[in-house]
């Protein structure tokens, strides 16, 4: 399967990072979500945030709990080809972090999440 997105640029400082990503309109996921009406699946955006968090952490992470995730805008690769992802990992315990992530553009926020993640 073709990649869902690509990272155009990123800046990571400690356990926080800002990622500028580009959605790939040719990803096959849009053939099924939904036929004739491409909408970026919310869960693929969650995966994108988790993968950016893994980049900041420098290793793979597991999500143990998704405390809250809100979707306020429907995203598509046509209406929102480029997005900014801001993530922050707050150490909570040995190998346990509180992850906050926001997908947006400029002043706008489209998706926010708070989760508990751990080293694998």
């Amino acid at each position, binding site marked *: 399967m073709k990649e869902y997105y690509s990272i155009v640029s990123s800046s990571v400082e400690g356990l926080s990072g800002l990622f500028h990503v580009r959605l790939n309109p040719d990803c*096959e996921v849009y053939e*099924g979500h939904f036929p004739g009406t491409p909408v970026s699946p*919310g869960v693929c955006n969650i995966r994108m945030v988790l993968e950016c968090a893994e980049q900041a952490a420098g290793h793979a992470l597991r999500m143990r709990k998704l405390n809250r995730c809100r979707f306020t805008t429907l995203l598509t690769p046509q209406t929102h080809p480029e997005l900014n992802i801001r993530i922050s990992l707050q150490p909570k315990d040995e190998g346990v972090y509180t992850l906050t992530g926001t997908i947006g553009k400029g002043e706008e926020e489209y998706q926010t999440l708070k989760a508990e993640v751990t080293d694998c």
Partner: protein
Amino acid sequence: MKGEEIYRLIPQRPPIVMVDVLWHADEQGAETGLTVQADNMFVREGLFREPGLIEHIAQSAAAFAGYGTYIRGEEPKLGYIGEIKDCVFHDLPAVGSELHTVIRMVAQVQGISLISAATTVNGQPVAACQMKIFLKE
């Protein structure tokens, strides 16, 4: 309903079909399933990952809503996740696992459904969450 019959209930199509059986549905909820195939787009290193579990639950809720439209002779409506709350991941199922999910309708107001869900594999808890879903009229 099994396999492609599920297409009568949900608007999603491959490669992002994350429900392959509807065991039961009534006005309060539904029971669904998914056998995790090796080529599932949410499998990484042999495990069905967290976003896949969330999508499975969301599509289980879609199948529940779709069962209602199906018995009325209507096409399944597009649904979007508005909010996910208190989603706990106990375990990541391996390829070949048979997920069993129980969906309960908690509240329904003007095209917004609040559902709770619990997923098990062989009776062992895998994931549980609450979800707010918007149906497009």
